[in-house]
């Protein structure tokens, strides 16, 4: 009797072992699905607040950290509006959050999300009345992305008022005046991104920003070459190869963000990513 009983667990053990072996060897051929670690959802504001135990500052900190750990180099274009929403919500929860407006300015407008960036910067300008940078970036975005030279100049003068040093204030007011007669200036854009990189405590973030400014410089160089090309040949270049074969550039620049450069229908060198849009 006792013997017959002890057979059952043994049998179960063997069956279990067999099933386990079957399952395990079957799984070998199955590809692991990797969850998309990038930003996927933006929760409604009150859900965020409730999840943080009612603490809006905690909810804001959480969103900003989320935005920071998102690897933007791997993000799909349709994910940027979500990142914009997450950061816009964070700025509603805590408009004075310094990292939030700083990261937003460093990433969002360059990926087509100018509107949320401007909302974040406007809120930061009001909440951080002692800080010249939010109105400064607001002015720059108006100038560079929206082409509103008048508005940009006005906001820049507003930023200048918050500068503690009278000399710097004068320089910025001067800049505000000079902006009125400058259009798209990529070298200046690159300098501003470089200045943002110099403020970063995190080395990886600084490196990321430097990549961005390098990209802008490369595009600026391509545009200069294209201008010369058009002047010499009387027609704009049809492709980047034209610039290369005419000897105006030594080599095609490599885009560290992967999207590369292209020539648009008007013969103007642009980022390939903006061409697709």
């Amino acid at each position: 009797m006792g013997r017959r009983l002890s057979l059952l667990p043994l049998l179960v053990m063997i069956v279990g072992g067999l099933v386990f072996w079957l399952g395990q060897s079957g799984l070998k051929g199955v590809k692991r699905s990797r969850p998309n670690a990038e930003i996927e959802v933006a929760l409604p504001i009150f859900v965020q607040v409730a999840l943080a135990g009612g603490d809006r500052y905690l909810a804001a900190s959480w969103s900003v950290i989320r935005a920071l750990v998102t690897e933007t180099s791997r993000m799909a274009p349709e994910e940027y509006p979500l990142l914009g929403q997450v950061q816009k919500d964070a700025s509603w929860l805590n408009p004075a959050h310094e990292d939030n407006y700083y990261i937003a300015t460093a990433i969002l407008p360059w990926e087509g999300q100018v509107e949320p960036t401007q909302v974040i910067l406007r809120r930061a300008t009001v909440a951080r009345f002692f800080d010249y940078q939010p109105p400064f970036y607001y002015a720059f975005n108006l100038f560079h992305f929206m082409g509103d030279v008048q508005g940009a100049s006005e906001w820049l003068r507003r930023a200048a008022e918050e500068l503690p040093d009278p000399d710097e204030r004068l320089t910025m007011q001067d800049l505000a005046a000079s902006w009125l007669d400058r259009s798209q200036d990529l070298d200046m854009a690159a300098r501003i991104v470089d200045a943002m990189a110099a403020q970063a405590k995190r080395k990886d973030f600084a490196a990321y920003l430097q990549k961005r400014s390098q990209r802008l410089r490369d595009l600026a160089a391509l545009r200069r070459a294209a201008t010369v090309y058009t002047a010499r040949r009387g027609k704009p270049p049809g492709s980047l190869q034209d610039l290369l074969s005419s000897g105006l550039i030594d080599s095609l620049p490599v885009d560290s963000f992967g999207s590369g450069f292209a020539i648009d229908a008007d013969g103007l060198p642009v980022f390939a990513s903006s061409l697709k849009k």
Partner: protein
Amino acid sequence: MWSFCLSALRSGFRSRAVLLILVLGTLLVGVAFLAASFSPRQPQTVTMDVGFSGIRFSLVLFALFWVQELVGREVEKRTVLYALAYPVSRGAYLLGRFFGVLALLAVAAVALGGLLWLSVILSGGEYTQSYAVQTGWPYWLTIGGLWADAAVVAAFALWIASLSTVQMLPVALGALFAVAGKSLGAVLDYLERGADGDQELIGRYGSLLETIQYLLPDLSRLDWRTWPMYGVPLSDAAVSYGLLMGAGYVLLLLAMAVITFSRREFF
């Protein structure tokens, strides 16, 4: 009454679970310290921000736990009858316990506040923020506000404990109260600023929230962290009305607790 307060202090510190919560609090402050490493430009502000949230969370947990431990459990186990056998009113017992919890919370607030203060100082490292945080008395005033917040939650839990016959009800309802009270500010703020242009939302919930404001305290009004974090000065009215609101609500709840507890039958 004071003997109840002192005995609450003694058993509060003796309880082993306090150690657990202290570990939790230290952990939260540690998380705040680590959160600073995510910050590209304001590590000290981030430490302070996350740390304040951690301290608020811990203090509310402490408050609920101690009320449950010192009143809820005594009622549950009927040991409260020994205390009530003394020639004192039931109200004195309840108030003594409440002041004991307040004192325990104050000790916890100072301990956690000190820990966070240290991590804020240390999290800067060699990097100098362009806008420095304030570690002087604006910082300690904010810690005081978090203590007041926890005190209101403790009073609410005490009231529930005075009438509840279900164990853990004070903790569960107290936690809900803490979340609702703290969220109220964000909701009101949203509606006040036009709800992103959603007029229907304002029409539907505006008047309801207007009423709720007079039933539920807006605990976010006791959160003064923008001062130490960003140097945005607080108006005297914000602090004094905030404290007045908190104190009034505590008095109301305590009176209700004393009334229900005095009429309660234990057999």
